[in-house]
């Protein structure tokens, strides 16, 4: 039971800290678009501002499904053929965040540049 109590206390502290921490960040969504065509991302490089929540809209112009995936962004989502999806990421710190299409890894590569 002592271990459980510790776990719960840690959880409570974590929750309090994180809630306070994120409350100070002004959340204003920024929309960006990327298109999948011939199993490639267009544009392959997208620049977005740091410290803002980003709504990434992915439009798939190919007939078959793709899976948008990024280890750096910790995101994965299937994009249906001839379909469109949205993914929320961030707020991010400056840096390069590569992403790829899991179903066509050789060609579908892109990077989110956060400045």
């Amino acid at each position, binding site marked *: 039971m002592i271990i459980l109590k510790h*776990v719960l206390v840690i959880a409570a502290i974590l929750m309090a800290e*994180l809630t306070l*921490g994120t409350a100070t960040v002004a959340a204003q969504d920024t929309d960006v678009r990327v298109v999948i065509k011939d199993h490639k991302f267009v544009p392959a490089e997208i620049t977005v501002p740091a410290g803002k929540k980003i709504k990434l809209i992915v439009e798939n112009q190919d007939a*078959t499904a793709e899976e948008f995936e990024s*280890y*750096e962004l910790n995101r994965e*989502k*299937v994009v249906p053929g001839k379909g*469109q999806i949205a993914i929320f990421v961030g707020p991010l710190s400056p840096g390069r965040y590569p992403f790829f299409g899991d*179903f066509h890894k050789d060609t579908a590569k892109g990077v989110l540049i956060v400045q």
Partner: protein
Amino acid sequence: MLGIAILVFRETLEAALVVTVVFAATRGVPGRARWISAGIAAGVLGAVAVALSTGIIADAVQGMGQELFNATVLFAAVAMIAWHAIWMATHGRALAVQMKTLGSAVSVGRRPLTALLIVVALAILREGSEVVLFLFAQAAGGAQWWDIAGGIALGVVGGCATGLALYFGLLRIPIRHFFTATNWLLLLLAAGMASQAARFLVQADLLPSLGPRLWDSSALLSDRSLLGQTLHALVGYDARPAGVQVLFYVVTGALIAIGMRLCGKPRTRSPG
């Protein structure tokens, strides 16, 4: 063929590890192979159905249907595991004693195998639907049928072999500790699933992230490595978790542990 095999392997591995933990947790239950096979079959059918409805699911709920669907599937599995783990905590000790004295073939009474059948089916449905979509895309992209068939065969065999290796590893645990070990594994499995579900809800902007990246341990253990993926499937390892994921992980684990403690208490004390 290798590219196909690798993707199939990755998805099979995650599902196979879940099935392995379930198979270990039901050790000694008569007819468990039938139950688990039924779960696998239901999962494969479900995977095909989900893959065929991808467009509908993706467009549902303002484009956030996929996240909601995944989160629901994961939370359902968490609830089933919690139910089973708490049930086992109540009856596990008696089971271990019976198995020790009478051998493992003994009938150990009714067990909520339905719960675990659902866990198996949901795990396969989730991972399998991605495989099916990927294979559709490969076939449409002009991949040869033998490349696809060979890729599936290699990937599935590889994933299942890893699951089997884990199973035989678990069998080395002495029987008196066996169900304690499998119960903890189930608890961590459920906590990991809750964390994944939280990630989907953050991705859909339905939950605050509470810190988009609480830490980054990818340099120590990458998500892409075999070990990273194995730990991801088994105990919910995430190299770059959002704060709310960690919160869901800890709270889910704590709730199940508390449930196991409360229900698993020996009833020797008289009330009052």
